Structure formats: C-alpha cells, structure tokens
C-alpha cells in the first residue's frame, strides 16, 4: 500500500537495499500523473511527454541516493521534470533549426495538429495563448494555474525569487486574456 505513504516513508523504503524498488515504485505511483501533466503542457504531444517523463525518472533513480531531505521531495521532482522539459525543447529547437521567436509557432503547430483541436473552442484558444508565452512565463503560469503551486515552492522549483514569480504570473495572465479576446 505504497500510495498512502508519505515522502519520508517512501524515501526510507528506497534507501533500504531490500526495499529500494518498492520505495521507488511508490514514488512513481504517487507523483507520476502530476509530473506527466506538468511535462505534457510544456512539450504538448504524449509521445514527447512519455519520453521526457521516463528520462526524468531514470535520473531520479540515480539521483535519489544523494537527495538531501532538507528540501521537499515534491519540489525536487518538479525541478527535475522542468529541467528535462526545457532540455528537450532546447534540443528540438536545435534539431529543427528553429529560432526562439519561432519556437512558439512550432508548439502551436503541434497543438493544431492534434486530432481533437478545435480553434473555435475556448479551451484550445487558451492552450494556443499559453504556447505564445516565453518558456519561463509559460512554466510559471502552468504551475500556478493548473498545479496551484504556492510561490514559495515554485521558487525552489524554478530557482527564482517569489516576487519575480508573482510579477511573471501577473504578466502571463494578462497576455493570455488579450490573446483569447483578440483571436
């Protein structure tokens, strides 16, 4: 019954060689959905999200040995997921020789190629609006709007001050509103 264990209990299971896999499986099951959706909103397609998520957990497996429990497991996992997503997007940009200004168009095109895409629906316009934001702003908006993450935790994830994060969220929300109302 690893789903009901808290982070400390899961880490204790992981650190015991006899129960290492059990502890790791428990961590995956507890955080897989939140981390998946966080990655998916950044990379858009399921296949890319699956790749990033699996790579992310492989790094977690290797890195958990050195994880210092002075920070929360939750924020540590989110940081790895965020970094893996940004690395993936950066590699895609290089592969496609896409400039920073065109990156949003690349992700917007991925959205539009989704079989369920409907430009007339508000929820799809919202996604297009989010993809029009710079990467950091997009992250801040997603973490606050979808994951309802407190700024204190967000500052550990994105290694940015709380004040900067609040300002970034404010600007992001305004841009999105304008995008939807003007498109």
């Amino acid at each position, binding site marked *: 019954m690893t789903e009901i264990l808290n982070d400390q209990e899961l880490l204790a299971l992981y650190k015991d060689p006899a129960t290492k896999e059990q502890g790791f499986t428990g961590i995956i099951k507890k955080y897989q959905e939140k981390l*998946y959706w966080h990655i998916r909103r950044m990379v858009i397609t399921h296949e890319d999200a699956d790749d990033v998520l*699996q790579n992310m957990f492989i790094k977690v497996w290797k890195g958990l040995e050195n994880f210092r429990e002075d920070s929360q497991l939750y924020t540590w996992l989110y940081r790895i997921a965020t970094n893996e997503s940004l690395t993936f997007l950066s590699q895609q940009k290089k592969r496609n020789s896409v400039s920073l200004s065109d990156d949003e168009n690349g992700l917007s095109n991925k959205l539009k190629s989704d079989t369920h895409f409907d430009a007339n629906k508000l929820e799809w316009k919202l996604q297009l609006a989010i993809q029009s934001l710079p990467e950091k702003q997009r992250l801040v908006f997603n973490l606050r709007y979808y994951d309802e993450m*407190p700024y204190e935790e967000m500052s550990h994830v994105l290694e940015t001050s709380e004040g900067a994060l609040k300002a970034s969220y404010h600007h992001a929300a305004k841009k999105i509103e304008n995008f939807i109302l003007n498109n």
Partner: protein
Amino acid sequence: MDKQTEINIELKTISPFLANMKKVNVFQIPENYFSDLDAKILTNIFLQRDEKYHLQKVPKGYFESLSDQIISRIKEEKTGSAADEIKSISPALFYLKEEPVFAVPHDYFDDLSDQILDKIKGEKAKVISISSARKWWKYTAAAVVAGAVTVSSLQLFHHNSVSENPKETITASATIPGYIQQSSKYKTPEELKAGIASLNDEEIVNYLESTGSILDEETITKNLDTKELPDENDYLIDENTLNKFLNSDAQSLNKNTQ
C-alpha cells in the same frame, strides 16, 4: 484561507475573464497509461548499460515458498492470458519479453523458404529409391551388356566367317573377355533379359564401377523413375511421409531377398 481560494482570488484580481473560464483538459492520453508506467520505467533502468545496479538480492527462503505463492495467486486470479499471467508475476519480465537479444541477418526469413527448397531439390537429385536404383542399373547394365554382346557376336561371326584356320579361331576366342563368351550363349532378346534379371545388385554395381562412364551417368539421370518417390510437398509437410516410404520399401526389399 486555503490555497485554492487564495489562487482564485489572485486570478480574479488579474483577469476576471480567466478566473471565470472552466478548466478543461484538452490533451488525450492512452488508456491505462499510468497503470503500467512504473514497470516500464523499472525495465528501462534495468536495461541501462551504464547502470551497474543489480536488482535486489533474493530474500532468504524466497525460492522455497515461490511455487506455493505462484499457485495460490493463480487460484485467486481469474484465468487469463499468458501475457496477463507474467505481467502479474513480474511486470519487468513482461516488458523484457519484447527486448531482442539474438541478432538475425537482414531479410533472413524472407529468403529462408527459397533456400530450403533449393537445398531439397539439390538433395533430391542424390536421393534414389532402392527399387528405382535396381531398375535403372538393370536397364543400363542391359544396354551395355547388349551392346557388348552385339559387338562380340559380330566379331566372332567375322572371325568365324573370315578365318578357316582353327588355330586362329582358338586364338581369337582366347582373347575374348569372359563376359562376352558368357553372353554369346544368349541368342534372343528374351534370353538376354532373363540373363540380366538373374544378376544380383552386387554384380551390377561391380560391373558399372569398373566400366562406368559419364555417358552412363546421363543414362541414369534420364532413366530415373521418380514416380515412386514421395512428392517433396508431402515430406516437407509431413516428415513421417518419407520415413513411411523408406520403411515400406525396406519391407518389400526384405521380401524379395527371402
């Protein structure tokens, strides 16, 4: 104030439009994606080449109780497919099943059937049934002996008609090979056939080995009676067909020699 309420108030302050929008997830995911994810990740970790970690040591008494555990799990669970079974016992093994370990040359299976058929055709040229062998050897032996008899008869006739000297006749007879002297007693084709039929296989083989030539080989190939051999499709499909054929042929051979 709880976290959710605080965030809602904040958004209403910035953008009432966004705050009032219903949150709808537009992204689709495969069914049961999350249920198998942990096993897939563990399998990937296990397969990583630079990963030196070996899965945890087997606890004491593990194998002693393993069979009982498996049997009780099987009884508890409903009957399912083999895939469901291994998946429930070991998700890592389920996914490892698909990992290729043995390399196969490119297009190996595409050409395999043609290669096998070519080999079979090549072997078929060497496979000669015993009864057919007896027959063509007899035909060949008959052709060669008949030819030798004809030539020797003509020579004898020529010598007899040309030379009135008995001494010369005797000398000529002395130089004639034994088989030709023997064959001269066959006056008719029927007598010749009967004479050949009385020959045993060893005599025919010895004769042909001592006098065989490429022409004989050609005669052999032409006279091969393949009708009695099983069709290649039969013994390709059913390996017992060829065995049955060989066994039945051996039985008929035993009857003839008794």
